[in-house]
């Protein structure tokens, strides 16, 4: 656990200052068709300081974490802030003061996770796949955990000691089609917490493996999508990605200032009245979110950010500086991934809120369309134009699920596509598996209900 070498330096703060010590620890085991290609662990950390002066920041970091290195980065960040202030001459006043109580450490492990747990779980899952899943051309099993510990001392706001563990297992299966092509499916398991809280007995995941294999065998016999604009049911897993990539990024205030499509659309109708979207801080629907954030890396206590309410774009996500620019209160979205990173505006737990329809009724309502279940990756643009790969999907014919579809893509413009949403399911799922990329990687969670909408499908 990080020792507090920071609080004592608070007396040396002259301008707005953040001082952060951080360690990111990872463990990973990878079995590639049974071969252990990774048996690894890492711990990288250090200390960083960021100082605001006249409208620009100075930042410095060092890998060493001791009294001298803390003093040195504080001085280097201050020197950098003075350099920028004297050369750029923005002449802005200090950042508005944010109030907040100290946030103490939660959920720290009593002892490190033994690598043997990761190895045994990966081997157990791999053996299960070999036993249950015939006709695979390859398989990959990964056990992974990432734990982030941060100690933050700020000139105003909340000092905090924060710990966020994430444990994941990933399964990839590949099978050959009759015409010699390879089709692939991927499944992520796990979420917030330590490895032993999620993964002790591989057999607990037998049904997930069965389901993945069943989908893969269907995809092996699958057909290519018929390209064009189609009526689609978007599975909750994919709706979460849509919320994050296609809408979420456009309403990050730094991207709004950079010219994103959300800028001219504040307080305007950007989606159907059935669509509401929130970036939750730490608690949603009465439960702790998959990646709870209680205080951000600027020391702002975290609150929920309401982004879209009944189809109206209501707000953006902010850091302290953008909140001042837009005349609003920051809600704790400034987060840094590594100790050597400065906080950027990032999403936390971004969700399209559930509606009132039943998924079965939604599928039954489609005469000729697609049920889009799983995305492999997705990208979006400042214009709101998005593209997602769809690894798993099925035809819907006459209100019933039909043949599986080979790899395809979907694309559209978020604020146009969301206006076509006419049914929203009453259930939702969370996805916490990946990393969001925006200069730095970042763990984020996303989620949503099933949506019925019009979507542009790519064919072969």
């Amino acid at each position: 656990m990080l020792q507090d070498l920071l609080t004592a330096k608070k007396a040396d703060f002259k301008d707005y200052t953040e001082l952060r010590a951080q360690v990111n620890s990872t463990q990973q085991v990878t079995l590639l068709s049974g071969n252990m290609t990774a048996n690894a662990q890492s711990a990288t950390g250090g200390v960083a300081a960021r100082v605001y002066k006249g409208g620009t920041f100075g930042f410095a970091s060092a890998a060493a974490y001791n009294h001298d290195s803390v003093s040195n980065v504080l001085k280097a960040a201050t020197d950098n802030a003075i350099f920028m202030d004297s050369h750029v001459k923005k002449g802005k006043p200090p950042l508005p003061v944010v109030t907040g109580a100290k946030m103490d450490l939660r959920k720290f492990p009593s002892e490190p996770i033994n690598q043997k747990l990761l190895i045994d779980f990966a081997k157990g899952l791999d053996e299960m796949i070999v036993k249950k899943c015939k006709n695979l051309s390859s398989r990959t099993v990964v056990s992974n955990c990432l734990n982030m510990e941060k100690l933050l001392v700020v000139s105003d706001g909340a000092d905090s000691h924060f710990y966020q563990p994430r444990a994941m297992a990933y399964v990839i299966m590949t099978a050959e089609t009759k015409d010699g092509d390879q089709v692939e499916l991927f499944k992520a398991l796990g979420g917030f917490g330590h490895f032993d809280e999620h993964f002790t007995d591989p057999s607990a995941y037998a049904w997930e493996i069965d389901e993945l294999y069943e989908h893969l065998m269907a995809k092996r016999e699958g057909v290519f999508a018929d390209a064009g604009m189609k009526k689609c049911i978007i599975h909750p897993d994919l709706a979460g990605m849509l919320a994050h990539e296609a809408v979420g990024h456009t309403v990050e205030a730094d991207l709004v200032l950079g010219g994103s499509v959300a800028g001219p659309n504040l307080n305007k109708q950007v989606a159907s009245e059935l669509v509401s979207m929130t970036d939750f801080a730490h608690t949603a629907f009465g439960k702790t979110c998959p990646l709870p954030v209680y205080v951000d890396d600027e020391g702002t206590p975290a609150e929920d950010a309401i982004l879209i309410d009944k189809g109206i774009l209501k707000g953006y996500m902010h850091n302290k500086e953008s909140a001042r620019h837009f005349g609003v209160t920051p809600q704790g979205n400034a987060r840094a991934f590594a100790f050597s990173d400065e906080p950027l505006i990032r999403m936390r737990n971004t969700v399209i809120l559930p509606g009132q329809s039943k998924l079965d009724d939604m599928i039954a309502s489609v005469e000729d369309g697609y049920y889009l279940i799983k995305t492999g990756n997705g990208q979006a643009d400042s214009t709101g134009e998005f593209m997602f790969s769809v690894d798993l999907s099925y035809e819907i014919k006459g209100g019933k699920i039909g043949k599986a579809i080979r790899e395809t893509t979907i694309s559209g413009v978020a604020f146009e596509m969301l206006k076509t949403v006419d049914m929203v399911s009453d259930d939702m799922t969370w996805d916490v598996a990946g990393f969001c990329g925006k200069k730095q990687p970042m763990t984020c969670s996303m989620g949503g209900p099933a949506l019925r909408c019009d979507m542009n499908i790519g064919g072969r």
Partner: protein
Amino acid sequence: MKDIANYALQVMKKAGADKAACTAGQGRKDEFNVEANNFTLLRTNFSDSLHLKVLVDGKKGTTTINKLDKDSIDKAVEECVALAKQGTPDEAEDIAPLATNKDFDQKIGGFDAAKLFSRSQEFLTQVKDEMPKIMIEGMTAEFNSGCTTYANSNGVCFTNESESYNAGSSFNAVEGDKTSSFNYYYSALANLNTPFIDLGMTRTLFEESVRSLTPRGFDGKHVGKIIVTPAAADMLWHTIFGCFLDDFSMIQGTSRWKDALNTKVTDSKLTLRTSPLHPLIVGGERVTGDGFESVNQDYIKEGVLTSFDLSLYAANKTGKPRAGNNAWSLEVLPGDMPYADMLKGVDRGILINRFSGAQPGPSGDVSGVAKNSFLIENGTVTDALVETMVSFNLVDVLQNIVGISREVNADGYGVLPWICLDGVTISGA
């Protein structure tokens, strides 16, 4: 760094490693940041790194930390050896054999902070004056310096001292309520002699972003030609590595080219290599991740598959030759077709500057949105496009390359020409 690496090796051997390898490094980054056309931050990062690999009874463990003090190294070694003992034996695991040890000097004369700042300031001023509709959403201008030593228990020892500048931006065009797609362009530089706006494709991409403020959709569905610019390198070249050449696809056996070594796999116009020693590559790698001196490597030579991109482990695992470098510095040899002639040969097609696509599966089916792209009609680039999808099979289109340009773009990371492909499905929304 040599002393630290050698100390770590000694401790690993003493702790029971049969074979051991270590990479120790120390570096510094100085970086100016810009957001929304304005300077926002000056960063100075002091970094340390230590990567350890041990083999015990053929079982591997790897540990990475960023501390270089004796206590931290001792603890990391203890953990690494413990990892290995818990691992699974694999005869393919090994470390590089003894070769000629070398010290590499890639320094470029040190950091000129004032010049880097003034070049950055000049860039913002030029963009504002010459292309006022361009919004620099984010820019970094940085100087990186460092020293890294790789050493292993076979006696291998390489040290690389390096320095480089990196500069570039992500940007879009904004006019009233209209916004273009974002794009980006970054360069690695050995000096600051050239204004940033004149680097590589920067000016062209800015101009094209402004033209993209009023895009149109592609009418209908068409199977025809596309020209892929060097700015869209990941659309083709990185995909070839990911689908057909790398460790993963070869160990898994999913590569469609797994049995195609020394056979013709593409049109003979294509020669694809990675060239860290190319004079236009800045700060190219000198030592591979598994401890070999890096050399330039051909993968496809005049259409013939000459190598896979395999690490030492994957080479041992598959029985195929190891690649000569880490495959970071892409080079495609120029062709004999002037770019102007390439354009003239396209009756109806598109010019692609950026590709937002799915990660292709093992089949090589590529599908996605053509971004920052333009319609080509009767040999002339006309309207900017929006919501235009392209799809093709990579193996199929590479069989019949229409042309590779005589001109190349070198951005310090790679040296790439323009390429024209046929048989691509293009469809509007």
